[in-house]
């Protein structure tokens, strides 16, 4: 048989566990019915005769107080469920399963409220409709073909169309490759060339055209554009083979302004 001291120690541990359980139910909002009140009371009752010291009696009183809080939570739960028209889903499912087809049909008819729409035409509207129908032209007159005129087909040549800029004389990719080859030949020992040095031409229009094609060289992986923001310089670096678009690590857009004044200053600076 365990000594009195050991029994007291065991009793204290049980009461501490009871107090922790009740506190966790209270604080975390757990189901209060997790606590088996009868079992807990039996434990408290078992160890109560052993308590002599005030601390032991306080621990016992605290355990009973916490248990009372849990009982109150259980009572609140029952009140809430019974007064707020709450129905347990499993209970409801069981009730529906037990209903026969006829009863289910009756219940459906009682709660089904279909939306009905009613349209009515007045005698005046009907008269208007008849008048409109009688005044309609026959189908053969209503569905006449759109009048067309026959035109003679003229003749033209590819050169004329190229002159009118309807047809492109040279493929764009040819211009792209020509400029790419030029870029590869004009780079320095480091394999790059200043952007402005490359695109600058004798005329403003030609400069714009070179800059336009250079933008495609960079976009489609024929060359790379290095921007040195501190020095305010840009360098073009051609690749030996075009790099596919998807292999580039990061794609960004860079607007480059080429105004007439800027081109003029550039020309003067280069000529000077």
């Amino acid at each position, binding site marked *: 048989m365990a000594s009195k001291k050991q029994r007291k120690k065991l009793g204290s541990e049980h009461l501490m566990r009871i107090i922790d359980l009740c506190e966790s139910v209270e604080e975390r909002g757990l189901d209060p019915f997790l606590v088996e009140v009868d079992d807990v009371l039996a434990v408290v009752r078992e160890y109560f005769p052993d308590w002599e010291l005030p601390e032991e009696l306080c621990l016992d009183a605290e355990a009973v107080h916490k248990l009372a809080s849990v009982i109150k939570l259980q009572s609140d739960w029952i009140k809430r469920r019974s007064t707020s028209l709450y129905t347990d889903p499993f209970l409801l499912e069981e009730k529906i399963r037990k209903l026969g087809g006829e009863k289910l049909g009756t219940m459906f008819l009682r709660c089904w409220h279909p939306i009905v729409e009613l349209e009515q035409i007045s005698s005046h509207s009907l008269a208007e409709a008849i008048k409109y129908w009688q005044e309609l032209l026959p189908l053969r007159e209503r569905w006449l073909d759109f009048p067309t005129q026959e*035109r003679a*087909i*003229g003749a*033209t040549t*590819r050169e004329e*169309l190229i002159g009118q800029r309807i*047809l492109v004389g040279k*493929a764009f990719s040819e211009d792209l490759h020509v400029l790419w080859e030029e870029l590869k030949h004009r780079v320095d020992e480091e394999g790059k060339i200043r952007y402005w040095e490359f695109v600058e031409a004798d005329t403003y229009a030609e400069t714009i055209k070179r800059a336009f094609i250079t933008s*495609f060289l960079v976009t*489609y992986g024929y060359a790379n554009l290095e921007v040195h923001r501190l020095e305010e310089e840009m360098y073009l670096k051609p690749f030996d083979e075009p790099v596919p678009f998807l292999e580039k690590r990061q794609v960004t857009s860079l607007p480059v302004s080429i105004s007439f004044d800027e081109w003029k200053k550039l020309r003067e600076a280069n000529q000077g």
Partner: protein
Amino acid sequence: MDPKNREMIADILVSSVRGTGTQYLAITPSQITFSESDVHIVTVQNIEGTSAVSEVT
């Protein structure tokens, strides 16, 4: 479409139809980039309100 993409699409269209014995009609308001000689080009221009039709010979 930019000129390069337009050219690529035109080449794809021509190559996909070549040799199949079918005709493909492409209608475009923009510049034509077909460089093939076996592409039949017909232009329709609005000149002072009248449609002028021309065929490349």
